[in-house]
């Protein structure tokens, strides 16, 4: 990055400290995901029934669950899986959506029509219900949560890439690339896509928050990730059984972790959009 860009980023961050805080929060989450499992005080899956359902204390910061497992360790260890699911889903739909959308917008014609129809059909479903049905159809496994979340994210990326490529397809530099003997595939992949990607990348952070919510929602329903694997949605689902008897810590702490993660990625996404795409600032 040039000094001018850095100065611009610094200027934006000074005027918008929230983005800085959100960025630090997101970085913190990534660090927790990487190092958390080796730092936690208790084994997240070892049960210790005599100490079951204890409220938060100095030993068990977030209390213990119905099998006496340490909720703090489970929430920390779950970070890796949750972030991994969200990140894989978003990158999958980003790559697929960019390529499909770019070719569709570049070619126009039949391909464009069929892609358009496919997107219309996807968008005709309530998206969370579609994800549910897909996990059900493909089988109750973690990778299927990723595929389902990726597919419900896909329409936005396809539409975005298609629209952006479509307005550039007859620009001078694209004509020049074609005239100097590049094949259509090369023009799309090497010339048009790099031009469109920065604007699309802004969407990633915003979508990460949404993907985390969706994946946690699916596993809350009992789809995808299975107990005893620690995952925020499952931790909440297990705690739900004890909420009417006042065991609030089982729901509160994994719920807070979810909220914190979504909040960080949403705020960071808003901030990044301000930095990279000032036209969209509201």
């Amino acid at each position, binding site marked *: 990055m040039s000094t001018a860009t850095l100065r611009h980023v610094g200027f934006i961050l000074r005027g918008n400290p929230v983005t800085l805080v959100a960025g630090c929060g997101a970085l913190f989450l990534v660090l927790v995901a990487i190092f958390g499992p080796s730092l936690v005080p208790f084994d997240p899956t070892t049960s210790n029934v005599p100490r079951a359902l204890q409220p938060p204390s100095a030993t068990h910061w977030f209390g213990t669950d119905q099998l006496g497992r340490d909720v703090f360790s489970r929430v920390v260890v779950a970070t890796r899986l949750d972030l991994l699911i969200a990140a894989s889903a978003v990158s999958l739909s980003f790559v697929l959506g960019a390529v499909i959308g770019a070719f569709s917008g570049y070619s126009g014609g039949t391909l464009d029509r069929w892609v358009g129809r496919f997107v219309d059909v996807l968008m005709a479903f309530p998206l969370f219900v579609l994800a549910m049905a897909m996990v059900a159809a493909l089988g109750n496994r973690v990778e299927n949560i990723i595929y389902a979340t990726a597919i419900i994210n896909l329409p936005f990326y396809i539409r975005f890439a298609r629209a952006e490529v479509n307005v550039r397809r007859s620009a001078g530099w694209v004509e020049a690339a074609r005239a100097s003997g590049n094949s259509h595939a090369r023009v799309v992949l090497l010339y048009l896509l790099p031009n469109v990607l920065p604007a699309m990348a802004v969407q990633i952070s915003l979508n990460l928050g949404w993907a985390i919510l969706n994946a946690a*929602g699916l596993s*809350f329903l009992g789809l995808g990730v299975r107990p005893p694997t620690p995952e925020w949605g499952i931790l909440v689902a297990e705690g739900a059984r004890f909420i009417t008897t006042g065991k609030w810590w089982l729901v509160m702490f994994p*719920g807070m972790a979810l909220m914190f993660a979504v909040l960080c990625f949403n705020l960071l996404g808003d901030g990044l959009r301000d930095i990279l795409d000032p036209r969209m600032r509201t």
Partner: protein
Amino acid sequence: MAMAATIAKRAGRRFLSSLPALFGVVVFTFLLMRVLPGDPAIFFASGPNAGQAEIDEIRRQMGLDKPIPEQLIYYLRDITTGNLGRSMTTGQTVVKDLVTRLPASLELTFVALMLALSTALPLGIMAALRPNSAVDHVVRFLCTLGVCVPTFVSGLLFIYGFYYLLGLAPDPTGRIDIFASQPPTVTGFMLVDSLIARDSEAFVAVASQLVLPACTMALFVLAPLARMTRASMLAVLTSDFVRTGEALGLSRLRVILVYALRNALLPVITIMGIVFSTMLGANVLVEKVFSWPGVASYALDALLASDYAPVQGFVLLMATIFVMVNLTVDVLYGIADPRVTIE
């Protein structure tokens, strides 16, 4: 009269243009469910010890031995005759189950939508009237937080607060307290039914059961509605006709609520489709949290029991409702803004 004719024509044309998407939905659902693990013929067979001959016979009866395109045609024929199969868990036809359970889901969704709109519009307007004031910041904070709290977490925390700690809410299971007398079913919407039966006790019982799940759902969609109201209200308030209205000496309230709000509502109507999609999804989670006997919890139970016909019916129903909602939004938009024409 001419207006009604235009609207009808518009609705008709919009309906025709949504048919391909609806057909795509049916085909997509069909393909999705054909991938579902488990052989339905085995489920329909008499028991786990059913012989291969019996399974083959059932498979032949269900048309599962035919090639996929032919099966699709059978499936389309079944749908047009209203046959969505039979649920293995309840023993009823899926259509019957869905019809008895749909009012519960719709009642919850509509009440939540009303709640969200009646909170989001005033909040958005107040924030737009005083940009960058304390009110504006509070609203922005609420909106930012609202989209981050998963519905299943906020629902459970509501239960903890209002049922366990304060004891204000009733036991969070079902649509009405099991000890209360249930109003006779007329519409299936219990609030309406209890009003028809003039049973104020039942009405209160139903309403108090409904408050927490409806609030949970409303909270989740509050943010996009309030944000959109604020943004479009801000834009409208600086426009010429608002200044003219003020210059003519109209009261501030009249200018804001009649002239500005009416124009500011247009973008809000456009995002109603997305809001509704979010609500249909959130409905699944909320019904699970509050043991709400709606279509979503029905489909979920079936799904976990590998009972595929109800799931298929549910997905189809949701997609159809969503297409209809988009149609309605479009027609409403045409009424609100006659300049808009469809492509």
